[in-house]
């Protein structure tokens, strides 16, 4: 297994390198037809008003944040700032801003950053992106109504802004979020949803709600020589079968694949050479609610992990469009321990553990699940006979996606199956299992372990990234041992692309979100793309 994971990581890196090498001489011009595959509409063109990936796909073309995610290095890096200086105590950062221009011609300055972050954190606006601001000093007081602005934001001069944070965590993890863009303070707020004004490489040309978003190259984009494309069309296509036909017909330039299509495309000589894969930072899991007496016992939770043959499920049901999970943190996480082994399939060991825990006569529980093919009812149905073999009777509680989160956050479940963000910031996502993190935040299984808490606190106070990673590895391994969830798989996101498309990147954060400024199309593209 470890060899396989290692090979996978090497392949991913190799694929990325190959992509870059192949893309050494980009060509300018042309039209790229992309897809937003998570529904038939978007919520808003103002990304601060929505938490949905579907909207993020469009926002990535229009806006820019202070930092950006680098899919190749797997780390956040400066975007709108050209340099940063960190104070001796590691909590204050002074950013020198780039010369960047908004689509309406306004120039980026320190006031824009301060205004944008105050707006995001403003409790009266109730913006989902407020979550990204919580690390900035003074946000808590501002949100509680004890201050009229965020005290941790300070303008030094027009091009310099100083931000003080409440802890030592790398600020880029939050400030790179596409949900925390920098807007122009002088632009009317009520127009952001219909006529967005960003700092990104493309500006809005036409939006047909429920169908498509058309964008054109922004000539004053701050990165020299980019974007390469003249036009970008993003088609809102939630139906996988319709996308498949449109892709095969050359009407769209990429297709995001599900398990069945992944298998079909892999076997098709015309398509199999243009497939991009990446282990995304999502961990699919079954969470056990400790209010069920049996789940309070670690041995029961471990037994379930031993009793399920997840390799078989990944191979047969998910058509290998997933990586069997080891623990919580995904393969692409800097704190992923390559030497750790997943729970092996061992029903005898499971029976033994259940007997030790006093459940040799069996136990029963239900799993709340959506219809999702990769982490929903079909998966629960597959584990039912496996768990039955060790005396565990499982039933399904089928719900739709918004009901799933509702039931989990209101503690109205015995177990659930879900796909949760588990990266890229290992500290942030392991903190979900910190005992003081409420269930309504992300400690859905109300995990509480003193040793784990100590490691999280230790990692939070560690300034050396290498040492912090070692502590987080230990915490992740402890989590595996404690098994508060069944560690199922890490999503393998797969994108098929037309042979004339170049510059796509294996983005582990979310493959469907691409750096559009780096994409270009070659001379073999059909006339409709020229």
């Amino acid at each position, binding site marked *: 297994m470890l060899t396989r994971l290692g090979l996978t990581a090497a392949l991913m890196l190799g694929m990325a390198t190959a992509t870059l090498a192949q893309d050494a001489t980009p060509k300018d011009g042309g039209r790229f037809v992309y897809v937003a595959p998570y529904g*038939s509409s978007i919520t808003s063109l103002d990304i601060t008003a929505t938490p949905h990936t579907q909207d993020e796909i469009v926002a990535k073309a229009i806006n820019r944040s202070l930092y950006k995610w680098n899919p190749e290095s797997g780390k956040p890096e400066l975007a709108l700032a050209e340099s940063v200086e960190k104070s001796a105590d590691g909590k204050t950062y002074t950013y020198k801003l780039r010369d960047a221009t908004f689509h309406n011609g306004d120039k980026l300055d320190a006031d824009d950053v301060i205004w944008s972050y105050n707006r995001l954190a403003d409790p009266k606006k109730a913006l989902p992106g407020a979550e990204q601001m919580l690390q900035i000093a003074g946000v808590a007081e501002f949100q509680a109504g004890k201050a009229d602005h965020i005290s941790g934001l300070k303008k030094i001069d027009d091009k310099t802004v100083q931000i003080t944070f409440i802890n030592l965590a790398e600020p880029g993890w939050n400030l790179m979020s596409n949900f925390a863009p920098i807007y122009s303070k002088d632009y009317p707020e009520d127009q952001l949803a219909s006529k967005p004004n960003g700092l990104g490489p493309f500006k809005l040309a036409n939006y047909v709600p429920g169908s498509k978003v058309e964008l054109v190259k922004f000539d004053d984009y701050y990165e020299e020589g980019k974007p390469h494309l003249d036009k970008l069309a993003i088609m809102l296509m939630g139906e996988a079968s319709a996308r498949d036909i449109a892709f095969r017909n050359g009407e769209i330039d990429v297709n995001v694949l599900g398990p069945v299509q992944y298998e079909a495309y892999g076997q098709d000589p015309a398509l199999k050479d243009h497939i991009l894969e990446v282990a995304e930072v999502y961990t699919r899991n079954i969470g056990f609610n400790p209010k069920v007496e049996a789940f309070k016992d670690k041995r029961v939770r471990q037994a379930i992990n031993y009793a399920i043959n997840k390799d078989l499920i990944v191979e047969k049901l998910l058509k290998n469009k997933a990586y069997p999970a080891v623990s919580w943190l995904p393969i692409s996480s800097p704190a992923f321990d390559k030497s750790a082994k997943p729970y092996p399939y061992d029903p005898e060991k499971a029976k033994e553990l259940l007997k030790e825990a006093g459940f040799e006569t069996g136990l029963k529980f239900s799993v709340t699940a959506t219809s999702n093919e990769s982490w929903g009812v079909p998966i629960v149905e597959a584990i039912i006979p496996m768990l039955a073999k060790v005396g565990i009777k499982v039933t399904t509680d089928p719900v739709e996606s918004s009901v799933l989160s509702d039931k989990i956050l209101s503690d109205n479940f015995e177990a659930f199956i879900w796909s949760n963000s588990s990266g890229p910031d290992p500290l942030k996502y392991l903190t979900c299992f910190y005992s003081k993190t409420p269930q309504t935040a992300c400690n859905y299984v109300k995990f509480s372990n003193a040793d784990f808490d100590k490691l999280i606190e230790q990692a939070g106070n560690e300034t050396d990234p290498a040492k912090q990673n070692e502590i987080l590895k230990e915490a992740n391994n402890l989590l595996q041992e404690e098994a508060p969830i069944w560690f199922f798989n890490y999503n393998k996101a797969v994108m098929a692309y037309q042979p004339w498309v170049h510059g796509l990147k294996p983005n582990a954060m979310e493959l469907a979100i691409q750096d559009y400024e780096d994409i270009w199309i070659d001379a073999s593209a059909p006339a409709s793309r020229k």
Partner: protein
Amino acid sequence: MLRFIFRRTLQMIPTLLAVVLIIFVIFSVIPGSFISSLMAEGRNAMNADVVAHLNSEFGLDKPLLVRLGDYLWGLAHFDLGISYRTREPVWNVIEPRLWPSIKLALTAMGFAVVVGVPLGFLAALKPGSLFDTGTMMMAVSGLSLPEFWLGLLLMYVFALQLGWLPSFGYHPGSIKHIVLPAIALGVSPMALLARTTRAGVLDVMNADFVRTARAKGLTEPRLVFAHVTRNVLVLVLTTLGLQFGSLMGQAIVIEALFSWPGIGSLLVDSVSTRDIPVVQGTVIVIVLWFLVINMLVDVAYAAIDPRIKVA
């Protein structure tokens, strides 16, 4: 006539109220909420303060009856409320979706009438013939084909294999883009119209006045076009009205499949995200469409058949 239209318009009010009430109650008791839909993607849960402010902003923290009262008060002032998702007035969300939906429904119905009515007529004129059998077999198939599957089949044949038409998308001035979704949506009413027309024509052809007309020496084409057609039209119009009225609701699947920006796909998105004001607004539009079409059909009866008095 004007009195009839006025009375029918007034009759729509209790129907609409009942629909609004049902939708309001259903979405108040079923599990899931707009807030939980924001967290459905498995990212970190939202900050509790943000959730509280959102609930307060949308009035979701008020008792059910107060919310219903607020909504009905707004409705009485032609205010459909504010969309939870986009935070725009609901009408602003629905309005750009209306014309694409109407255009699709009109085209689908046009296809159904142009193909279905002549087929039913011709089949009835030669009952038991190969053409009649073939037409009716086609009609039964058309009625039983799932729209989603038919849509995919059309895409596969006419876009992927033949390359004649685009497989998806919406372009306001393009005829090519509407052909496949309109056929996929229009096949079922076309089949029903063919069957209804055939049954109606067969019935009228056996009527006494037709026999009398034949005995008087009327030519067959004159008999069919001047007498049979007019008598069959009431039945055809009734079927057409009911089908046309329900097309906007039926288009939900087709719109999602073809990325057609109509109110059907808006309804699906709004239900899954529990954007209740938009769900209610969309349903009101769909119900109004149905009621208005059927009122127009009633008005048309009088024009076609003088024996029917709408007043």
